């Protein structure tokens, strides 16, 4: 039933309903559905929900005398009937990722309206009180309540929001990575753009390797040490196919380039057989597309693999040492260059700066390993 929510909200909003009112009406309709469907299942659940939600919305609007003007608008709208679901879903994506929203509000609203998750589920995933998340969502709704649906939004913003959801991983009862993939698939089905395919491919390729990325105690397992037999080959094949189709259209973007790098990693039977030369070429492309310092940091790692740790350190020297993970990369390259004392000190320093628990513990272990030699 949850899958139908965005479509129903989309229809109501297209017909002139205010976003918040549309959502309330859909919630009412869902409650009604839970009550009556078990005994009397509808032939077309979507049409049923649209009809009931629309009736609720009209009732609510009529009850409010101050809304007479909007009522007039409603009168002029066509009667409920078959809807162009893909289009309506799409508009909802753009609305939820509207540039006027902060990143966290856009994420929360997307999960609520497009994903159909409950406020409680979203709050649990982000480890904040339900009341906090409810406020975040209702503020976001207020922010976009005046926004009309007549102009397509910026697809880059939508993709950024979906990638944020994906990178949150999971906690509680909702797997946000899987949710992000579901939403991106849905977007890709209704919106034809190589970068949407690029992001979907990137997510699938990362997701395929997820099981091998952590050890039994939750510890981080670096790419080179991962058990490649645990990679999901079906997901990898799907990601590569989607990526190839996108690349063939010759409209390269950031996500396609990142997916290409992920695909090259996924393609290597062993870490030693990784095609670093091609990966470095893709990092060069990516640096040209984004000029992001994080990309140049990753590129320095690739340089280290292709031309040796000295060359990697030279590439690193051009970057700002306050970048996240700069010190971790420096430690790795120093170790490969045989400067073990310096590497141990840098690993310890990098551990102090690590943004995540698993990463910090991993870096502490690296420092300990070198110090214990």
């Amino acid at each position: 039933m949850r899958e139908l929510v965005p479509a129903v909200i989309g229809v109501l909003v297209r017909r002139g309903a205010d976003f918040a009112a549309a959502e309330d009406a859909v919630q009412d309709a869902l409650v009604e559905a839970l009550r009556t469907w078990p005994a009397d299942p509808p032939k077309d659940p979507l049409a049923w929900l649209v009809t009931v939600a629309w009736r609720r919305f009209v009732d609510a609007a009529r009850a409010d005398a101050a809304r007479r003007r909007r009522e007039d608008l409603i009168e002029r709208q066509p009667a409920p009937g078959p809807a162009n679901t893909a289009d309506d879903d799409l508009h909802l994506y753009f609305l939820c990722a509207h540039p006027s929203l902060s990143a966290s509000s856009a994420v929360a609203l997307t999960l609520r309206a497009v994903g159909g998750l409950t406020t409680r589920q979203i709050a649990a995933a982000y480890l904040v009180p339900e009341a906090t998340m409810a406020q975040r969502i209702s503020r976001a709704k207020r922010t976009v309540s005046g926004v009309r649906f007549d102009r397509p939004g910026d697809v880059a913003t939508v993709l950024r929001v979906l990638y944020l959801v994906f990178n949150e991983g999971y906690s509680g009862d909702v797997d946000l990575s899987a949710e992000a993939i579901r939403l991106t698939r849905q977007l890709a089905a209704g919106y034809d753009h190589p970068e949407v395919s690029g992001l979907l491919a990137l997510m699938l390729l990362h997701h395929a390797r997820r099981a091998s990325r952590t050890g039994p105690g939750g510890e981080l397992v670096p790419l080179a040490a991962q058990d490649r037999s645990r990679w999901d080959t079906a997901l990898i094949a799907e990601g590569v196919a989607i990526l190839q189709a996108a690349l063939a259209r010759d409209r390269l973007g950031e996500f396609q380039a990142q997916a290409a790098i992920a695909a090259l990693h996924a393609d290597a039977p062993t870490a030693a057989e990784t095609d670093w030369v091609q990966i470095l070429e893709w990092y060069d492309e990516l640096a040209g597309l984004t000029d992001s310092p994080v990309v140049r940091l990753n590129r320095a790692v690739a340089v280290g693999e292709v031309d040796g740790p000295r060359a990697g350190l030279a590439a690193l020297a051009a970057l700002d040492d306050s970048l996240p993970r700069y010190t971790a990369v420096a430690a790795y390259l120093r170790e490969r260059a045989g400067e073990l004392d310096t590497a141990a000190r840098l690993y310890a320093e990098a551990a102090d700066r690590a943004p995540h628990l698993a990463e910090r513990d991993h870096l502490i272990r690296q420092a300990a390993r070198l110090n214990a030699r």
Partner: protein
Amino acid sequence: MAKYLLLKHYRGAPAAVNDVPMTQWAPEEVTAHVAYMNAFADRLRESGEFVDGQALAPQGEWVRYDGEGRPPVTDGPFAETKDLIAGWMVIDVDGHERAVELAGELSAAPGAGGKPIHEWLELRPFLTSSHTITE
């Protein structure tokens, strides 16, 4: 998206600009101070950035494991400590810049003479367990 801990210290922080002990404030100045803090928390609830906050009593003690079958060793409540935490608030904000902005606002709570205390607040990011993909 990023959680931060705001720590308020009884002692251990650098001296505030308006550095008058609370016990020497006028009662209405104390009331105004508390009202400011509550209004601040309410605003963060409203903006969806509030996670939790509590005040702590100054009476802390140290506790240590003392071996198998023995009760823990305690030291205190008068243990030597240079740092004493008065309370904390956890916020969940878009980034570091916003966290600093909010800490600055909280540090502006009124004190003696109704003027901002300009006290130092400690701001600490949470380590999270989420796995941002970095390979």
